[in-house]
């Protein structure tokens, strides 16, 4: 134990430098911005993950965001337990019929200003399940989505880039809209 702790202190961080986000790189992913005039949310976003029927792949990569290599926390972003504490609803999966009401309830439980992110191909377009009789498909069909992050599943660097670009665009709305 002692050895591990001392080593952890002196072996330095595993965290890698943040991925560079070029201007306007994520602009085409961001569909709406600035629902309100309040722009101070910037680098303090609490995220509520909502699995609306994914295969668990996107969840695995979302969890990976918290590991020492990516360390989501350093950007002022964190996953929270209660939608009441959250600013961002991050949806994965092709919105199964059974999760539709849960999605509505979760959205209702969040306080404004709030944003919605669709993570992964299923939530963005319905993916392979777009034609399923048990699924609705893209998240945008049931809720207004502010940011799409495609991929099956998107790897953590892609997610991180999109999130950084998104939070920065909240600080400088013009750059994001470009």
């Amino acid at each position, binding site marked *: *134990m002692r050895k591990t*702790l001392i080593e*952890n*202190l002196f*072996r*330095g*961080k*595993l*965290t890698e430098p943040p991925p560079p986000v070029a201007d306007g790189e994520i602009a085409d992913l961001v569909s709406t911005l600035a629902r309100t005039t*309040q722009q*101070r*949310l*910037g*680098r*303090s976003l*609490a995220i509520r993950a909502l699995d609306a029927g994914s295969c668990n792949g996107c969840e695995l990569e979302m969890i990976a965001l918290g590991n*020492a290599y990516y*360390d989501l*926390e*350093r950007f*002022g972003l*964190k*996953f*929270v*337990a*209660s939608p*009441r*504490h959250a*600013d961002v609803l991050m949806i994965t999966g092709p919105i199964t019929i059974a999760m539709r009401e849960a999605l509505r309830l979760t959205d209702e*439980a969040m*306080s*404004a*200003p709030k944003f919605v992110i669709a993570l992964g191909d299923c939530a963005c377009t319905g993916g392979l399940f777009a034609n399923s009789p048990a699924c609705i498909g893209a998240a945008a069909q049931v809720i207004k989505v502010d940011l799409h992050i495609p991929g099956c599943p998107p790897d953590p660097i892609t997610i991180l880039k999109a999130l950084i670009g998104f939070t920065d665009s909240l600080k400088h709305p013009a750059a994001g809209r470009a």
Partner: protein
Amino acid sequence: MALITPLLLQLVQMALVLAIAPLLAGLVRVLKARLQRRAGPPLLQFYRDLAKLIIKDAIVATGTSWIYRAAPYVIFAASWVSASLVPSFGTNLLFSWSGDLIVIVALLGTARFCQMLAALDLGTAFGGLGASREAMFASLAEPAMLMIVFTVALIAGSSQLSVIATFMHSGAAGLRLSLGLGLVALVIVALAETGRFPVDNPATHLELTMVHEAMVLDYTGRHLALLDLAHALKLTLYMSLIACIFVPFGMAGPGAAPASLALGLLAYLGKLVLGAVLLAIFETAIAKMRVFRVPNFIGAALMLGLLGTLLLFVSATL
């Protein structure tokens, strides 16, 4: 005229604890991240989060009463006032006599009472879960804390914190067995009361293991900001308390010059940083306890406190 400086100092004390509480909580988070080989959140993240929460809309659950809405304010105010009553950079501030250590403990009890009522007001399983666990922990932590108060008060001949700090600083206390027991007990109580490891996990994402978080699960926006701040204030309070009783070095006395006040402030900040480092290491190195082990843990504090008091009843020099 003579009242203005003391009044000013008293106000500085109040502002200081309020300003420093989020920083301290943030520092512990950063240190813990570093021990996990992560970068961790920015040091000032807690302030950013508060600023964000304030501008968010508040949501209250349907079916709750005025108690639910009033509770955050009462909890925050009681925590703030009790944190301000603990001497930080200097002793004998203007209103230091308005409550002794027993009053500080009891005032935190008032805050907890309101917190539990607010949780029950929700009428959800999680509210009840948090409140009933908190009630169990508190029913041991409060008596343990009182035993610590007894120990310290018997040594210093007073339950006033300013007098205690002055006495401890004078070196008259010396090295005592009872004081050592009191310190261990106080650390245990502080961990339990501030919802840290191994009693509660401040960063947990599991509804069923939560204690404090379960009670604030439904608060949003400004209400949540107040509760988070109150929680951070409580951490500052207990760290200041340990510093003030057990390492009162550098504290400015009554009517001190500005230089010694500045020194007192520096010493105080130094003690908090040290406290944060120790807390971070401890929290990283230990696993959270099973819920029904916690009473044994806090019960140990009660026994240690009682033993300390008993030693002093038997002999004033132990």
